[in-house]
């Protein structure tokens, strides 16, 4: 028996798959299926648009309209598509049942044409098969073999908890201990310009940048005031008015919060989601905004290439 394989074997012909198929389909359409309106073709077909349920059906004339209307938007956009997901990727997730009506057309022509493209022993599949990215083949029902309830896990939590369930009772009678009971704490050093003594702060105690910012304010407000007090001649009132440290996150204040991440780069606080920040931050620093050239010209978040260590 002749070799049998999907076109997407990974051999060089892969990239030509789409146009070739069009040819074949047009051929078989002419052979067997004249004059069917596109509407009718759509109606009679039950299956992923453009996708074929089995390999055989690629030849089905009714597929043609769907394939054309499926694939082309992708390929006309860019001939050598990489592994960019096509709309069918979503199809693969839907677990509907593939009813493909097809005329009983043989796959012989397809196989015949394919024979040239395919080397039965597969030994001839050269390394170039790895070199090129595979264009996304039409998805096949039931592949990969994942049950439907295991799909769509990347889409995040479609929380069922927020429903108007009859049983929601606010939790009042529980332990007053906060989450910090979890042993994991995340203490990082924090230094401030102009303050010789640094502090340590537990990032696990916060769940947002705002809270961190206000904590920094609380930590250093007094110290800063004490600093400026001692730096002057001390003639002033001992009770120097403590100035609120604000605008740490948006560049609007006198000081700005930056951090050093796990790759050693100095970064502006606030760009990444909080959780990601907590997991990558190594130490914090409160810098004078005037020292940050980007900020003084009006903010562009990104890496700061400042000399000098923290």
């Amino acid at each position, binding site marked *: *028996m002749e*070799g049998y394989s*999907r076109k997407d074997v990974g051999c060089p012909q892969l990239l030509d798959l789409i146009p070739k198929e069009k040819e074949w389909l047009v051929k078989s359409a002419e052979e067997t299926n004249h004059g069917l309106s596109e509407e009718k073709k*759509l*109606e009679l077909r*039950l299956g992923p*648009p453009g996708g074929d349920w*089995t*390999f055989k059906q690629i030849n089905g004339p009714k597929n043609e309209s769907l394939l054309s*209307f499926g694939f082309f938007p992708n390929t006309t956009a860019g001939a050598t598509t990489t592994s960019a*997901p096509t*709309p069918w990727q*979503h*199809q693969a*997730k*839907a*677990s*509907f*049942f593939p*009813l*493909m*009506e097809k005329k*009983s057309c043989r796959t012989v022509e397809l196989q015949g044409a394919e024979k040239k493209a395919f080397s*039965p*022993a*597969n*030994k001839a*599949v*050269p390394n170039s098969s790895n070199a090129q990215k*595979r264009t*996304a083949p039409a*998805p096949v029902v*039931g*592949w*990969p*073999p*994942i049950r439907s309830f*295991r799909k769509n*896990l*990347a889409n995040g*939590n479609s*929380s*069922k*908890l927020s*429903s108007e*369930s*009859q*049983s*929601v009772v606010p*939790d009042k009678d*529980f*332990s007053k201990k*906060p*989450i910090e*009971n*979890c*042993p*994991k704490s995340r203490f990082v050093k924090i230094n401030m310009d102009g303050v010789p003594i640094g502090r340590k702060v537990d990032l696990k105690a916060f*769940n947002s940048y705002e809270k961190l910012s206000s904590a920094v304010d609380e930590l250093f407000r007094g110290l800063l005031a004490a600093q400026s007090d001692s730096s002057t001649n001390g003639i002033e009132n001992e009770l120097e008015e403590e100035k609120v440290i604000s605008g740490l996150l948006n560049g609007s204040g006198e000081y700005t919060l930056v951090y050093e991440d796990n790759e050693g780069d100095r970064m502006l606080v606030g760009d990444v989601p909080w*959780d990601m920040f907590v997991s990558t931050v190594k130490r914090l620093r409160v810098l004078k905004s005037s020292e940050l050239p980007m900020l003084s010209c009006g903010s562009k978040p990104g890496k700061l290439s400042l000399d000098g260590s923290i």
Partner: protein
Amino acid sequence: MSEDEELPDLGGGATPNSNSTVVSIGGGDQNYVSPGPDQVLENVLENVLCFLTSRRDRNAASLVCKSWYRAEALTRSELFIGNCYSVSPRRVTNRFRLIKAIAIKGKPRFSDFSLLPPDWGAHFAPWLRAMAISYRALEKLYLKRMCVRDEDLAIAAHSFPILKELVLVCCEGFGTDGLAIVARECRQIRVLELMDSVIRDNEVDWISCFPEDVTCLESLIFDCVEAPINFEVLERLVARSPSLKKLMLNSYISITQLYRLMIRAPQLTHLGTGSFSPLEIVAQGEHEPDYFSAFAACKSLICLSGFKEIIPEYLSAIYPVCGNLTSLNLSYANISAEQLKPVIRQCHKLQTFWALDSVSDEGLQAVSAACKDLRELRVFPVEALEDAEGPVSEVGLLAISEGCRKLQSILYFCHRMTNAAVVAMSKNCPDLVVFRLCIMGRHMPDHVTGEPMDEGFGAIVKNCKKLTRLAVSGLLTDRVFNYIGQYGKLLRTLSVAFAGNTDLGLKYLLEGCPKLQKLEIRDSPFGDSALFAGLHHYYNMRFLWLSACKVTRQGCKEVARQLPGLVVEVIAWNEEENGTSEDVDTLYLYRSLDGPRADAPRLMVRPSLIMLGKALFNYRAGFPLAALKISPSSCGFHALAVEPSPAA
């Protein structure tokens, strides 16, 4: 027993009712006529056979002779029906009279992946009818891939008053209505487990239907029930179930509700944690329950699962139990390697671990370093896409093989793999019994060498001498089947997709693997002559599944003709009722004592056609197809149950 020597040879064919000799045992009453040796033997047999629990042993015993057959039939109490269509319920109830526990399996596994229409069959109702008459003392009912209706559950509840265990795996057709009836009527229920089943939400508060007094519940598993739960009632139920050891919640249970249940049931050994996220994000400073202590109080917890909508920050709450866990199922938790590491490095007793590939190769390396006792690993994809880079690869597989030498079972989804890693695993993990590797891109070669994956799988069958289950993927030629046929002498289950070149592939399998029971193949170029190569073996198999292969209707008819004890089901996607096309889309054949089934669906009108038309239009308009849920309630399909022709 001295009688043994006097008995006629009990080899096959002997009729035990002949020559009943009267033997006088001991002095005393001369009128006492002791039972004939045959009867004594039967009595002895019945008493001895009670101790035989393995069904395979019992099957063997029942073949010795009629006497043994009868004795065995009278003493068997646990029944396993691997294919509900292989034998009629009546035949079963006629033979076995004293069944207390029954397990019935229905649809073939590929039906999980939408390769069969939903109305294909595997109905529980006919079995129930027979059992309701004959097995009223039934205590345990286990159904897998069967269609069970609410009415069936109602009848079961009424017919089996002492039903203690009801386990439904991958079933469908019923809803919370049926569950309510079970809860209300099955007063002795100890185990109610619903796993991977599709259950309709009839908006019935089934949890409230359990009796008000102390229950004997030991296991309550409902994580697949996609319906809200009346939490207060559940809490009270748990509080009055002192024997409860296994509790698996669905994703409608928040982590705060989980806390409340845990503090009421610290004796739990198996816990499915539900959503593992709070109802709302808790602001800093607000009171949150002490989840950590709740877990610390569950000193017997060995199996943890759930995490259906996990907020990863809460994962640290499980630290207190990690050291005791033998099973951890994080296969719904989309967490990173960094989030996994602090958990897994404490799980040194772990034997079973299920995860998503979001943990990446790095996470698997952490598993390999920490879980030296690991026996079973399953890695599922977060996104079941064929074309993706994917976070797990041969690196993870290799790491696992190097760290987890006692591995027995692995299911691994990935996008790229190398022969070298698979070969390494075959050598590092000689105890492998189950090896299922799914390289999700079709026909994917070894991504480093560009070669087919033949050598890797070949090494598995060659080096893993205990292997009984194998699933292959990637670019595969006939060569891999040659290896499997040559070395896979213990292989019982084999799954093949998009593999092979010629009929030789299937021939190697059918000729080489004497123990093959379940063979499921899709989209591979095997045709009639390969099909015929298995004629000598099909009666020994549970089933053969071939879909999108190259068998023809003629070939199928020929098989049916030659093997009248087989049922050969053919699914062909023809428009015409009397299709003369030779095309066969799906072939499903299995042995049966009672011939083709009467409940095969017929061609029907397809209302869902129009829906799909809409889908296409929506696609044109640019709506994402993921938003469309098409659930065909009835679809046309022409099932041709090929009748074996009378012996010609």
